[in-house]
């Protein structure tokens, strides 16, 4: 187990900069999830950590070792791939031992590790099978087993659940969370699925076009997004955002019936106001009160999503509980508390509200 320290890492393919000045510290035993839309560089960052891609600038430290110029195997990392990447012509047992053979490990130790991993992942009855005779979930467990037997300093996961069906994804996600607790290993996990990120991570790193937008505990990102990108990315359905303008401490936008953000200091000019769908309620009292027309109602049973349109044209989604929901075409009034209101300035950066 070890820490990981990334300093000013840069990576480009030709003239395209994939990663721009990445700084990241990962504590011993921490579970860090890299999230972001496809093409944001999260997988490339993971491959750089693994040593599968050379970096153009910066430093990588695992524990006290600088690993910039070390081959993947020497970095003491293990990687689990989205496609599992099992050796197709070797059985489960040999898939796990194949890599160990080149480390000069003696056979007894090898067998001990395989037995332990197989027990942990319930692979014991499958040891003699080949990958093609396994289900997707079993293959992914073998891939995880192959990582475990290496007893690496850092586990790297590259979207390990993306090829599994929905039910298996949930159960494997829980397995990975248990595994992290059991091994208390440092893990870095790449995904574009925010549910995985929210449930697994000690810390989430949100990436966008080669930069880290924000890092923090899952709930910090949820409650205090640092900028518009993170606000849009974390949460489902996404946060409602609409434009407003401010002057002399007063915020205006079509459809705002009342806004009282207390003592918050915000600049004059264009602003974006954000409120999550789950933080609105059907009421006409609150710190922020809006009026909007109902475009569409989606009833999911326990909850309903009301798709609204503000007089200015901005769309809103409001999560409603209970059986009473407004009808299409109706004009309704919704309210939110000021602690659930997010403000962003013209550059997209979050404005810290005094009470937040």
């Amino acid at each position: 187990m070890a820490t990981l320290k990334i300093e000013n890492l840069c990576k480009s393919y030709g003239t395209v900069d994939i990663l721009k000045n990445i700084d990241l510290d990962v504590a011993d035993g921490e579970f860090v999830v890299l999230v972001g839309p496809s093409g944001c560089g999260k997988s490339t960052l993971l491959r750089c950590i693994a040593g599968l891609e050379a970096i153009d600038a910066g430093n990588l430290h695992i524990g006290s070792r600088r690993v910039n110029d070390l081959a993947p195997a020497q970095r003491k990392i293990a990687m689990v791939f989205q496609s599992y990447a099992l050796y197709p012509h070797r059985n489960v047992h040999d898939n796990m031992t194949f890599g160990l053979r080149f480390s000069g490990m003696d056979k007894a130790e090898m067998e001990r590790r395989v037995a332990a991993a197989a027990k942990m992942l319930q692979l014991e009855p499958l040891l003699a099978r080949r990958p093609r005779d396994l289900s997707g979930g079993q293959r992914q467990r073998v891939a995880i087993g192959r990582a475990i037997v290496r007893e690496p300093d850092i586990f790297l996961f590259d979207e390990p659940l993306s090829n599994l069906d929905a039910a298996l994804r949930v159960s494997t996600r829980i397995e990975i969370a248990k595994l992290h607790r059991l091994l208390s290993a440092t893990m870095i996990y790449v995904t574009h699925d925010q549910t995985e990120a929210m449930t697994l991570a000690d810390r989430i790193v949100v990436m966008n076009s080669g930069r880290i937008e924000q890092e923090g505990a899952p709930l910090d990102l949820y409650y205090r997004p640092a900028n518009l990108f993170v606000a849009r990315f974390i949460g489902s359905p996404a946060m409602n955002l609409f434009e407003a303008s401010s002057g002399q401490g007063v915020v205006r936008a079509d459809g705002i019936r009342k806004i009282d953000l207390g003592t918050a200091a915000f600049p004059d000019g264009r602003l974006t106001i954000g409120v999550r769908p789950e933080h609105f309620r059907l009421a006409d009292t609150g710190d922020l009160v809006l009026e909007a027309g109902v475009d569409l109602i989606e009833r999911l049973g326990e909850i309903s999503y009301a798709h609204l349109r503000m007089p200015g044209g901005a769309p809103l989604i409001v999560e409603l509980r209970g059986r009473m929901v407004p009808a299409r075409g109706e004009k309704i009034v919704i309210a939110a508390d000021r602690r659930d209101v997010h403000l962003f300035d013209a550059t997209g950066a979050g404005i810290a509200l005094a009470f937040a």
Partner: protein
Amino acid sequence: MTAMRPRLATLAIHSVLSAYTLVAILPILLVLMNSFKARNAIFAAPLMPPLGTTFSLVGYAKVLSTAHAGTYFANSMLVTLISMFLVLLFGAMAAWALTEYKVRGTTLLAIFLSIGIMVPIRLGSVAILTMMRRLGLNDTLIALILVYVAQGLPMAIFILSEFIQQIPRDLRDAARCDGVPETLIFFQVIAPLLRPAIATVAVFTIVPIWNDLWFPLILTSSERTHTITLGVQQFLGQYITDWNAVLAALSLAILPVVVIYILFSRQLISGLTAGAVK
């Protein structure tokens, strides 16, 4: 109506294919049939199958009793198999290197090799002959093997490169994370997955080498180094009227190619990568 159209199309395709198959197979069938017939029957009724009185093994007896027939066959086998082995080994390794390691010059090298596919090697016959003589390799099987390896390599590299590109990159990356040495990544992880492609290339390589008459003709001069195709020609020269021997020798020459094809065609059915990913 909609069901009729594909059926008609299928019928048309199959009739064209069947016609072509007949054109391709009939001469071979004719050779095989007549090789089992007595000499006068060959000329009297060349299109009749060997039946009753016309059946005769005299051609085969003559071929097998000729002292050099065994040598010819052994030479052909040796040259073909060694060439095939070298083409496959070097071809697969080169294809791996060209696709996996991007260094300066790989593109140039790939273009150079594709020229090898386009330009027939026979154009260089004179140069090859002089070169072999200078090297003291004329009238040796090594000369033939060298030429055939050069002839087979470009196509082998081309086909195998295409195949290697289809092998998921994750597999090589996983092996690298596992600490598998680069040479073993090729021989133990990639090569087993290339089996269907290697079988294809093997068939493509073997057939022209086995059937080749040109290079044995210009590069070998003594009976010690003749291959079967050249040996048959000499039958023609010596026993110009003895069609039995010629047809029997040709029939025998077909056999090994057919056997090798059947052996490899089982490998041609791929699906070996199933289970590697997804």
